[in-house]
């Protein structure tokens, strides 16, 4: 039984696996239509094509210039990197990529013109490839997904680090053996092919998992946020109130504000719901700048909002509420025909832990009542308490 394995067979097995990854990514792209997935699909496809060309080389007489597969494999890696950059929403680092491309092109041209040894061609691939692989590793390792679960990101990143190391080892081997062909056996060759297979396997499934994790994260968020304004919803307010109840500090003073837009129904009726929505989104975006955590704005539906201000005195809260009124006043919404200046009415109440009974019904009603006093006076300002 021969112990020395056949490199050509491994190339064929790699091509099969990369084709499978291409198929998987293609269907994933059909599901999500995301640009990043399309890049991954193209990346795997180029790599598969490259491995197939090498496989052909081993069986049929060389029917194509050898550097074609080198170009394809660099292209495959680049596409995968572009996909990662798009997925993570980071800039593509051209300043590092372009020197790699230039070096690779130079060496490939030198190989083709001077018809020199394979090591030169491999050096070209190794330089460009390592830059790409290390960039993928770098981006994935420093990525901070919103859910905080970084396991899969790290897994794919580290796989690419290993691939970069294997690529360097193979390049050393190729340069040391001037008579080496693509299929000469050497531990470095063998290692590289195995790592390529593992990288294909892990990165394709890892990307799928990253996509799934991202969707699950968004699903989680959608239960606590209002889809229109992106603010928290009532569920978050209930939780925050429960947190105050659980707080051992009896004496700390909290504030709750309730506000709604003046004549919002008229805006909706006159200009349509799209403009009404635009008013809500634009104004709340401005107001959110004034409310920093642990304070929070909550949309409870329609044009009604709550602002919870833990550990805030009534004076402080009144100041914030006045600032909110001014900010809303300063916002302009262009409807093509007229410019709307929306105003808000704010009702405030101050409470301690002991005031929260029955889920906080009393404090909600107090803030509500204060807001209606403002409405009665014509709106557009603040009433500090009922």
């Amino acid at each position, binding site marked *: *039984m*021969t*112990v020395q*394995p*056949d490199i*050509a*067979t*491994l190339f*064929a*097995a*790699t091509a*099969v*696996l990369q084709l*499978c990854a291409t*198929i*998987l990514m293609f*269907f*994933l792209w*059909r*599901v*999500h239509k995301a640009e990043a997935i399309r890049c991954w699909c193209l990346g795997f496809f180029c790599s598969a094509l490259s491995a197939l060309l090498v496989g052909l080389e*081993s*069986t049929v007489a060389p029917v194509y210039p050898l550097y074609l597969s080198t170009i394809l494999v660099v292209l495959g890696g680049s596409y995968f990197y572009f996909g990662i950059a798009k997925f993570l929403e980071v800039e593509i680092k051209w300043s590092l990529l372009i020197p790699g491309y230039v070096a690779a092109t130079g060496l490939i041209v030198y190989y083709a013109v001077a018809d020199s040894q394979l090591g030169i061609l491999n050096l070209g691939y190794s330089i460009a490839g390592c830059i790409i692989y290390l960039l993928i590793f770098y981006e994935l390792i420093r990525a901070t997904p919103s859910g905080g*679960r970084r*396991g*899969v990101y790290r*897994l794919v990143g580290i796989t690419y680090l290993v691939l970069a190391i294997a690529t360097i080892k193979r390049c050393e081997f190729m340069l040391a053996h001037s008579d080496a062909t693509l299929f000469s056996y050497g531990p470095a060759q063998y290692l590289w092919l*195995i790592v390529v*297979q*593992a990288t294909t*396997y*892990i990165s*394709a*499934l890892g990307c*799928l*998992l990253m*996509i*799934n*994790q991202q*969707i*699950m994260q*968004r*699903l989680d968020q*959608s*239960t606590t946020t209002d*889809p229109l304004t992106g603010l928290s919803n009532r569920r978050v307010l209930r939780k925050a109130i429960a947190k105050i109840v659980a707080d051992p500090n009896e004496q700390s003073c909290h504030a709750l504000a309730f506000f709604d837009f003046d004549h919002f*129904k008229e805006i*909706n*009726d006159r200009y*349509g*719901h799209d403009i*009404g929505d635009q008013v809500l989104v634009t104004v709340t975006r401005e107001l959110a700048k004034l409310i920093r955590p642990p304070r929070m704005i909550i949309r*409870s*539906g*329609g*044009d009604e909002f709550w602002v919870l201000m833990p550990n805030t005195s009534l004076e402080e809260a009144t100041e914030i509420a006045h600032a909110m009124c001014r900010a809303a006043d300063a916002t302009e919404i262009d409807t093509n025909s007229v410019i709307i200046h929306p105003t808000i009415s704010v009702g405030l109440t101050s409470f301690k832990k002991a005031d929260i009974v029955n889920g906080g019904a009393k404090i*909600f*009603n107090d803030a*509500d009542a204060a807001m*209606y006093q403002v409405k009665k006076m014509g709106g557009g300002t603040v009433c500090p308490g009922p």
Partner: protein
Amino acid sequence: MVLDEVSLYVSVLVCEICGVIVLAFLWPIHGREPAVRYWICAFLSYFAGTSLLIAPLENVTAGIVVLRDLLLLTANILSYLGIVAFFRRNPHTHWLMLGLLATILVIAYASYIRDSAQIRTIAYSSYVLLIYILAIYQLIKSSLESPQLAFTFRFVAAIHALSAGMLMSRGLLAAVIQPEYISATNQLWAGSLSLLLTPAGLFLGNFAFLLMLSQRLKFELIKRGHTDTLTELLNRAGFFEASDAITRDSYVAVLDFDHFKKVNDAFGHAAGDRVLASFTRCIAGVLRPNDIVARAGGEEFWILMDDTDSEQAVGIMERIRKRVAGSSNLYEGQRTPVTVSIGLCKYQPSQKQNLKEAIHRADEAMFQAKRAGRNCWRISNDVHGGTGKGIESPNPLSGTG
């Protein structure tokens, strides 16, 4: 082209190890899903089964062969159970187990008593084929039931069909047509081609379910974006999305609760929410399956009545108006009187009429109803522009109770 088997075994081994690594990272993300647990077990069983093949080929005993068959059978059953759990269906476990028992008996008999690779292969292959067919049946059935998700289900079904085809060619056909071929390859592989494709099986065969999961997650996300949280009806985005399915002449209605602000002020927001939520009860049984209802925001609802003439549309609206007015919304012992004002407008998708435009006209008709004293409906009679006065409802102020 001659393939080197040792290299292929190495390839299979690499894929197996990678598969296990991926599983370790899959677990914290999808581990809560019962189907995924089955699939993980299936992979591990498959892993163990194929690993036995990498043992030196010369001294394969009958025990190893039976063990391998058993592990691969278990993997197939677990993968099928995963599919059933994913679709929340009845797995018919006792039939599966009965079949498994019979197959094991036949395999043991063939291996230990008759020493016949032919019988063993036929028993093993037919049982696995049966499971594949069951899985494909479940997948196709589900793809017919939920067309939005059909795409990935069919993809996974195609992979199952492919595996079944490979099984047929290398197992059943080889055993029936060329019995000597099977024994020549020591009952393990019908050639290196299937060995070459094993990594593909380890990759696509065992992880294609991730695609189904991915699509279902995305579908849920879209659905949530299209659903109003309070009433669990569609929201505006969902309404427009669903309205694409309406191609016949229909009527669109805008319903607005009367004096809703007063309900909110008098009884608090919780009471107001309760009134809105009870609207779903009022429309239940009145609308037909193809009709589309949405909460457009605040106290305004939209209804698109498919394939309806004005008489039918008015009939439906009149019933809803009466139901709302007659519904008792008790809150802290006090009865909150609620009524709706309704505006109607014809919507003709066949004439490329814009739905937003139709809603706008229905909205105008609704305001006429409000001006006419509320708790009634008005119909916009101008389908192609102009400002008509609208047809009056026969009995504008009746039914307030």
